[in-house]
Structures are given as C-alpha cells and as structure tokens.
C-alpha cells in the first residue's frame, strides 16, 4: 500500500491509473489469448435469428451438459469470417438460415463430412450435401403473404405475377443482401432462365420502391398493417405473426402449382461441421440432437418450420408438405448460382 502511495505521489494519479490499466489490459490479453475451450464445449457460428435457435440450443445444454458458445451474425458474414479465419477458426459448427451459404462454405473447403450414421437414415437426400458436410435442419417455403382485406388470392398464380406493373407500390421485398431473396431469385433463374429471372428482379425492384426491408418480420408486419398489400417472405414468419395476433388480416399464398410450373420455392436452414472443428465429438452430439425427434419437434412447433426428419409431424396450423408441390431444383445449385445472381441483383441496383 505504501509503495502505491509513493508511486502515486511520484507520478501523479492519472499516469498511475493509466499504467495500472495498461497492466490490466496486458494481463487480460494474455488470459484471453489461448481461446481454448474445454472438452464438452461446442462453438457455434449461427446465421439464424437468436430467437429461433437459442431455445433449441438451451435445451441441448440442459439435457446433455455440453456447453454451447454462440456467435450470432449474418450467414454470409459468417462464411466470410470462416474464410478469413481459415484453420484458426474457433467454430465447430456453422448454422445458417438457408442452404446456399452452407454449400458456399463447402465449396470453399470450409466444411467436413458429418460422420453420423443417423444422418443418412433420417434425412432425405434432397436436404443434405452429397458428401454430408452439411445437412438441412428445417424446411421453409419462400411464399407470398397478402393482406386478406386488400387482395383476392385468386388473382395471383405465380410468384412472377408480383413483378407485373399492377403491383406497383403495393409490394414489400427483402433487401438485396437477403439470402432468401438471393436463393429465391436463383430458383427462378434455374427453372425459368436468365431472361425471366432478370424481368422478375427488375419488376419487384420497381414495384417495391421504398418498401425494402431487412427482416421478414417487418414485411409481414407491413402487410398486416396494410402499408402494402403483398410481400414475399419465409412461410413461418406469417404463422408466427398469426400465433401472436390471431386476428391479423394476413394469409400465406403458395403459388406456381400448375403442371410444369416451377413449384413452390423451398429452402432449408441447416448445419455444417467446420473443416477445422476442434470439438468434433461434441459437435456430433449437437447435430444428433438437432435431427432427433426432440430437436425436430422444437423447430416444428416453436418456429413453425417443416421438420426434415420424416417421423416428426408438421405443426397442424401450417399446410402439410404433401399438400403442395415444391420446386425440384437441387439446393446445391444455390451456391453455384449465388455469384451470378448477386451480380445481377447488384447490376439492377436493388437496394
């Protein structure tokens, strides 16, 4: 104590404090450096809204005792982070809101095959990578949400209809950065060709004008409030909104069902095992839990998504997967088309 008083007297209070805090800083850096997590920890990079994934991860922590370290950001942002970190990534698994980002990570050699027998037996081939380095966890449809007071659903047959001038000023769309928009447009490109995709993007850009939203939630909200009459969103946002406000004047519309049409646009939220995962057993444990009936039921009931495990039932409130025809374009194509579609979106100046 006496020494401290002497030092303080010699240097003055403020330099003393700064020297002290530098010391604290250095110590903390040294402590922080080896960011090594104990066995029994799994480090998760997640591109899904925390609200949609945290309850499931919390449940996993409680039942298994394995600690989950979660970092939430955008899916593409996390691919970039994995790409920059290379072998030094702390991440063990990578959860995303759509398949394109996972396939992109795989094509950049950032993922490794998941060696779990349960994967091949529970998950349909369509919902996983050829080498099982990523698997779908829950399905979602990119559908139209419309205001039931303002729109007659019989007038819309295809998603492409929304690009016609009659919807000018009545449409809400996600931002150019939305992985859903990119994936949806890629699907149009794959099934209808470049010209139609181009017209579709141009049309929705002009029709939406300023009604460009960062979040699906906000689009559903805008439609419910009658700010716009239609929007394009993932189906579960509509049902989540209806669960909270049963009287909201909104409904989903599944389009493109005619013979030879492109089918409803389906995508998956999924998980990949990173190429440099440091805790593979714990990561396997987490993946096994997420595809088990318990994990899948949480996605189905809390989030109103489509479970990928066929033994788990879809929430009764949402249209059964057997009641409509989904697009047959393989999800792996999403990564390949990503660059061309982003360039097109950028060239057309979507916001």
């Amino acid at each position, binding site marked *: 104590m006496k020494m401290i008083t002497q030092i303080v007297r010699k*240097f*003055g209070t*403020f*330099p003393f*404090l*700064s020297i002290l*805090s*530098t010391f*604290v*800083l250095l110590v*903390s*850096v040294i402590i*922080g*450096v080896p*960011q090594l997590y104990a066995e029994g920890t799994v*480090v998760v990079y997640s591109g899904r*809204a*925390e*609200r949609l994934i945290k309850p499931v991860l919390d449940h996993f922590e409680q039942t298994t005792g394995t600690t989950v*370290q*979660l*970092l*939430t*950001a*955008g899916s*593409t*942002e996390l*691919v*970039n*982070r994995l*790409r*920059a*970190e*290379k072998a*030094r990534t*702390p991440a063990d698994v990578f959860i995303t809101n759509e398949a394109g980002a996972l396939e992109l990570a795989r094509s950049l050699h950032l993922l490794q095959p998941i060696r779990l027998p349960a994967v091949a037996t529970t998950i349909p081939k369509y919902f996983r990578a050829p080498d099982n380095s990523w698997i779908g966890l829950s399905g979602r449809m990119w559908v139209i949400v419309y205001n039931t007071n303002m729109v007659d659903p019989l007038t819309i047959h295809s998603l492409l209809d929304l690009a016609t001038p009659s919807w000018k000023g009545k449409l809400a769309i996600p*931002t*150019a*950065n939305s992985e859903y928009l990119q994936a949806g447009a890629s699907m149009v490109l794959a099934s209808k060709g470049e010209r139609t995709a181009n017209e579709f993007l141009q049309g929705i850009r002009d029709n939406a004008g*300023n009604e*460009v*939203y*960062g*979040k699906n*939630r*906000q689009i559903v*909200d*805008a439609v419910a*409030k*009658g*700010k716009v009459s239609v929007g394009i969103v993932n189906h579960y946002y509509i049902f989540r909104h209806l669960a909270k406000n049963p009287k909201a004047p909104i409904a989903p519309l599944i389009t493109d069902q005619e013979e030879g049409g492109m089918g409803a646009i389906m995508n998956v939220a999924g998980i990949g095992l990173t190429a440099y995962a440091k805790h593979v057993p714990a990561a396997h444990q987490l993946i096994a839990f997420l595809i088990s009936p318990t994990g899948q039921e949480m996605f189905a009931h809390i989030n109103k998504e489509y479970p990928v495990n066929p033994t788990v039932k879809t929430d009764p409130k949402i249209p059964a997967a057997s009641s409509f025809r989904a697009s047959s374009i393989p999800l792996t194509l999403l990564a390949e088309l990503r660059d061309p579609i*982003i*360039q097109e979106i*950028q*060239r*057309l*100046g979507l*916001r």
Partner: protein
Amino acid sequence: MVRHTRLTPLSLLSLGIAAFLTFPLAYVTYSAFTGDLSQAGALWNTRLPELLTNTISLAVGVSFTTLTLGISTAWIITRYQFWGRAFWDWGFVLPLAIPSFVLAYIYTYLLDTAGPVEQTWQWFTNSDARIPSPYSFTGALVVMTLNTFPYVYLLARAAFQNFNLSFEEAAQATGATRWETFWRVSLPLIRPALVASMFLVVLYVVSDFGAVSLLRFQTFTYAIYQQITGRFDYQSAALLSLLLVGFALVFLFLERWFRKQSRFYQTSGRVRTATPKPCSMTQSLLINLSFGLLFMAAFGLPVFLLIQWTLTAWTNGDVGTSFGTYIFNSVFLSASAATAALLLGTPLAYLASRIPSKLHVACLQGAYIGYVLPGPVAALALLMLFTDVIPILYGTVFVLILAYLIHYLPAGLQAMEAALQQVHPNLEEAARNLGAKGIRTFMQVTFPLVRKGFFGAWLLMFLLCMKELPATLLLRPIGFDTLAVRIWLEASEELYQLAAPPALLIVILTIPAVFLLSKKNWQAG
C-alpha cells in the same frame, strides 16, 4: 518554420504508432486496386449516384439543422437570464448519452405506420391521415439532428462564453442593430468553433452505421457494411471507402485551414464577457416551452420509453443475469481502448506541438486517418492482419480494442493537442535547465498542466467506444457481446422491450461522462 531534428527514440516510437494507425488505410487502398475492377464498375453505375446524393444531402441537411439548433440554444443560454437556465446549461448535453441507433429504433417505433404518433394524430384530426414514414431522408435527418446538435451547442456555448464583448459594443456604437451585430459580428467571430463542431457532426453523420441501417437510408457507410457482410466483395467496399475517405479528407483540410485563420481573432488583454440579460415572464415561459420540446424529443421521451420497456421486460423475466457480463464487457473494452489511445496519442501530440518537424506533424496527421475510415472497413483490415500475420492474438479482445483505438484516437487527439498548445514551452525549458530529464519534465511539469484536457479526451473516447457498433459486430470474440451488440441484435428484430434494458444501461453509464464533458470549457483550437 521547419526544424530538422535527429531521430530520437521518441520520434521513432511515434513513427511506429502512426504507421500502425495508418495501416488499415494502406490495406484498403491496396485491396481497392488489386484484382478485377469490372464488378466494381457495375456498382459505380448503379449504386453510386444514389449513395452520393443520400450521403451528401444528409450531411448538408444535418449541418444546417444542427447549426440552427446549436447556435440558438447556446446564444439564449449564454446571453439571457431566465428561469431554469442552470438546468438547460447542461441538459442539452444529455442527448449525447443516447447512441444514434437507439434513438433510431425509438423513432421507428414512434413514427411507424399505425404507431403511437400516427394513431394520436388520426384521433386528434379524426381522419385517416398518414404521417411521413421514418424510413426516409426525413427520418434520418430528424434522428441525426437530435443526436448531434449537442456538439454544436457545446462548442458554440464555449465560444460565446469566451467572447470579447468589445467587438459587439463597437458594432452597436457605430449604429448596427442587434440583429446586424449578431449576423455580422458575433457569428463570424465564433466561426472557428462552428467549423470545429461541423467537423464533428459531418464525420459522425457520414460514418454512422447503426441509425441509417435501422432507418433503411442508404448512405456510404451502410452500403460498405452491406458489401462486406452480404457478399465477399471487399474490393467494392474498399473503393467506396476510399471515396468516403477522400470526401472526409477534403473536410479535414478545410477545418485545419479555418483553424489557422482563427488565430487572427484572438485578442490580447482582458476578455470581457457578456452579462446575461434578464427576461420577462413571458419570454421565460416561451424559452422553457421550446427548450422543453427539443429536450423531450432528443432525450426525455426516448429515456421515458426505454424505462417503460425495461420495466415490462423486467416483469416478464427477460432481464437475465447475463447483463452483468454485458456491462463488464462494454466498460472494460471502452476503458481499455480509451486508456491505450491516451498513451499512444501522447507522444504524437507532444512531439507535434513541441518539435513540429515535418516527420512529427506527418505522424500526427496520419493518426487522424482512422477517424475518416468507416468502422467496418478498418475492422476487416484488422481481421485480415491478425489472421494472417499475428494469429496468436486473433479472436481476443485485443483486436477489438485496437479497432476502437484506431477509430477514436483522433477524437481524443484534438483535445490533447489543444491542451498541449496551451502550455507554454518556456515552462518545460525551465525544468530542463534545472536538470530534469525529458520524462521527468513531462510527468512533473507538462502533465499536471494538461491533466484536465487529457481527462476530457479520455472521457470523449470512452463515450464513443461505449456506443461503437460495426467493428464490435465484426470483431467481437465468441460469447463477448457488449451492450451495444445486444441492443443491435434485439432492435433489428424490432423487439423493442428486449433491446431497452441494455440501451438504458448504456445511457446511464455514459451520463456521468457526458456530464463531465459539459463542464469542460470547450474551445476550438
């Protein structure tokens, strides 16, 4: 007058610091011009006109409104005696405690379709009338104005307080009216302060990321962040950044130039300042009414809503124990960064003011680069540096602290420079003649004299770090969320109640710093 000096260890040190601080810009320039430029060309044609118009019009608009609000509040408070003056004197600094993105999310709630303001308006007018959308230029203008006018107020108030009354008296004696005197004498005389505050405001506006993205108003910094996070298009982001840097540099040089001009206006002899004029009852009432409205819009109402939402979240059991961690993370990061910045900034500011050789001045100017480089870009440059060159530190708080330091040291440097300039070199020479060595002179003579100025610099940097968002989002270690990050994650989902507790905490934690800042006598130059 340029003096050539030999390279002392101290100048080598400051050269090293400056080199480190300018590294991100060097990296950005390098990546802007390597590789295929065709994709960037497309961006040029499609996005650039909109981004340019939006950014410039917002900067000009906010400058205009903040000048109007800042000057008029400062003028009334320094020149009139009215009821409540003591409160308003520091009350108008309080809005600085609210981060721009918190104000933005509150205003999106208030002004949205079928939001409280629209409902009240419709009930009041008994109609279906719509109010302007907050997701527009107007929305961004209102939020940024309310958030930044205190900078103008602070500097204008200090200028009016240190203002020599004789000039005005001379003008009035020669027949000028009060109005003419204000426009042609008083305002021009505080021009250095106004330019300095415009410097703060404009740089704040163009580098803001949180508010414009919540208000969906496309400016440069927002577009740059999107380029980095939405695609791996670092080149376009880098090009956009360089453009923004160019824009800011022009501004920086203008500000420096005006500062040099300001030396003219300093007079010797005793400065006589104005005695506030007493107001009538009605005037007093009017002033309080208009001040009250402004204060409610910028601080009162937002804080009221935050408290209300926090209480709701509290009763719903949404406020967990993890908040202790978020508070610690925020305070720890900001305090470390501010301290480190002070330590690194001292040699730069000291050398440039005492031995203004070309090298030293260049080092100091180099340090200012960090302020004009958008946060997300500097963050990505650091990420690359640490993963490729110093991997052992990657993923630690250290990287984040450095990002803060690079971005906010310039804000502190301004105050440090000003403080050092006020110490006459004669005092130091006297100490040296008496046999004290360099460091001892600094510690025992210089430092005690600049202590207050340095503390002000520290506070300013601390305050800015507490509110930092884009670099924190990109560089935070896993599980190391700060209060700002929590607000962001919840607010971008429009979960107002969940975003409120961390927002209220930031406000509470920064109020003391803001209060101390308001007590400091700010002088430009």
